[in-house]
């Protein structure tokens, strides 16, 4: 009955110390978010508005994207359209080759991960440097991110210390976060100064002005776009918002939900290319337009990639990002994976107790848990339902549809109590991993009622 997730999660949680640290650290981020949200009396009103703005925007994409393109182009930006990941990568390569770029700096973009841009460019001989500290650490370690906002949350400071000692020449045995961050500053400052082009993602794209808005804390996106003169901004098309007034809603929700800050250190609005430079914007589809045709799942397009759902998810906190098979983990990852390819990513559906905390914490009211429940109903149709679960369900159904049989089962069930341990726990092996079985009552409620014992 195991899934790829349950197997990987079992390994993660077996390392009790690491799992407890991961769990508590992410809970603290959730707690910081709670504190921030309680300081805003109109918080729930903002969530409603954000959800409705997104539903409006994503159901008017044709008009809004064209309005955006018109305004961005009038501002001097060059707008490209990429129907899929392959085309996106080729457009980026084309721009870099046109300008003979050998040194390329990037700030964090989940879209770039989705398109697998880095390996593509590196293979073509371009140096790609991740400039977000967490992403740079992972790049140097050659491992993927495990959280969309806190990508290196699973890495301990000692590991970073050892890594930097090897790659950046820092002091042996020094794992002080401030010391290591300063070393990274120096190392990446060099990269910013010598790069020929930079890339950012887009948190929001404003249709009425042609602005690309990027929210960061480290200053890496801004250093990247302030040194080299070519800026490539890439956006999933669902990032579009109608006007600047909408930004008032989203900028109040984003950082509070993501990291428990009132706002990110930098909320940059890119409108025109720099003097003597170029500003390219790539609008990417890669399956998003198809999601529009699935009303049960359309709210996933609301997502502003804050990561709050991961921080609250009791399963993610105890299993880590690597136990999910899709590159984005946690509740939103489960849903995005199913939308991208249900037959490839269904293993992640087991990673959920349907507690619905995610749906309640989501700043844009994506019905994350409810959608997972609906996806589970789809599994049999796509031939991916777990055989054991199917047999158990059918068995339960058989039993429950026949009250006489159910009552007999109730009558017989106390027998289970006295079975030898090894039989009990082999049969219900999975329950027995850490729990004792409940004891069946000597007389069921049904029997007591029939014998007039309920008074």
């Amino acid at each position: 009955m195991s899934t790829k997730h349950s197997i990987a999660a079992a390994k993660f949680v077996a390392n009790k110390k690491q799992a407890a640290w991961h769990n508590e650290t992410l809970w603290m981020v959730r707690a910081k978010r709670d504190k921030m949200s309680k300081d805003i009396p109109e918080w729930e009103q903002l969530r409603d508005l954000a959800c409705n703005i997104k539903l409006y925007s994503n159901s008017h994409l044709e008009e809004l994207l064209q309005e955006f393109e018109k305004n961005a182009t009038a501002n001097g930006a060059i707008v490209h359209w990429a129907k899929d990941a392959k085309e996106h990568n080729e457009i980026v390569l084309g721009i870099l080759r046109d300008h003979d770029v050998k040194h390329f700096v990037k700030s964090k973009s989940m879209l770039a991960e989705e398109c697998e841009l880095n390996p593509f460019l590196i293979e073509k001989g371009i140096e790609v440097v991740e400039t977000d500290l967490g992403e740079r650490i992972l790049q140097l370690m050659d491992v993927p991110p495990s959280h969309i906002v806190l990508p290196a949350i699973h890495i301990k400071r000692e590991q970073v210390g050892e890594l930097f000692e090897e790659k950046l020449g820092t002091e042996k045995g020094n794992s002080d976060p401030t010391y290591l961050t300063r070393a990274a500053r120096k190392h990446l400052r060099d990269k910013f100064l010598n790069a020929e082009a930079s890339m950012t993602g887009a948190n929001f794209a404003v249709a009425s002005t042609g602005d690309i808005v990027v929210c960061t804390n480290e200053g890496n996106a801004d250093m990247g776009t302030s040194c080299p003169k070519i800026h490539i901004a890439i956006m999933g098309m669902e990032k579009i918002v109608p006007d600047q007034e909408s930004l008032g809603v989203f900028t109040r929700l984003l950082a509070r939900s993501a990291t428990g800050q009132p706002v990110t250190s930098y909320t940059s609005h890119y409108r025109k290319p720099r003097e003597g430079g170029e500003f390219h914007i790539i609008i990417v589809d890669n399956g998003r337009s198809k999601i529009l045709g699935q009303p049960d799942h359309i709210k996933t397009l609301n997502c502003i990639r804050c990561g709050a759902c991961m921080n609250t998810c009791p399963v993610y906190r105890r299993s880590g990002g690597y136990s999910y098979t899709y590159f984005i983990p946690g509740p939103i990852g489960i849903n995005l994976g199913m939308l991208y390819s249900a037959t490839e990513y269904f293993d992640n559906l087991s990673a959920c107790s349907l507690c619905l905390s995610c749906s309640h914490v989501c700043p844009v009211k994506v019905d994350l848990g409810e959608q997972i429940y609906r996806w589970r109903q789809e599994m049999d149709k796509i031939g991916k339902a777990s055989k054991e679960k199917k047999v158990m369900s059918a068995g339960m159904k058989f039993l429950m549809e026949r009250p006489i049989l159910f009552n007999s089962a109730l009558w017989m069930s106390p027998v289970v109590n006295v079975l030898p341990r090894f039989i009990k726990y082999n049969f219900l092996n999975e329950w027995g991993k850490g729990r004792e079985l409940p004891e069946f009552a000597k007389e069921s409620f049904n029997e007591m009622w029939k014998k007039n014992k309920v008074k």
Partner: protein
Amino acid sequence: MNSKELILESIRKHTQTKYEKPELSVDAITYPDKQAKFCEMLQFVGGEFLILKEGENLNEMIMRLNPEAKRIGSTLSYITCNTFNPDELENSTELNGTDLAIVEGLFGVAENGAVWMDQNVKHKALYFISEKLIIVLDKNKLVNNMHEAYRQMEIGQYGFGVFISGPSKTADIEQALVIGAHGPKGLMVILK
């Protein structure tokens, strides 16, 4: 059909319910003392503030608070303590090694200690590249929240604009907060 047309066609084909644009009226939080809240939040995010008192000299205060700053850049006409004018530099990369940059903000936001600037210097790197940044702000130009902030900004005016709230920071190593990542390690807003 080119990609743009393919994408727009796919959108058209798949879009089902057309949702209405919501009315954007929020009972947003306001503060009885915007300046006090602004300063409180600025400190909360790791920044510092200074309220210039009657008779105090801005340039003297800056020098007094930053004795170790050797290379000071500013384009502001009323700043005399700077050692160079960033607008005279050819390339933004030449700004590297600036100890202190002094710039001017347009307005501040009380709920999060942010200051809005739209670029009125030759190199926007000036806002990010120095070790420390000072933003001079008229203390009467404070709004309560981001809704009010966005209503202030006029369309078509800027090529680049940014809300800056505190110094650069990161918590990417074990969630341990480190002030000063790739941008300035310190930020001070001087309210005058």
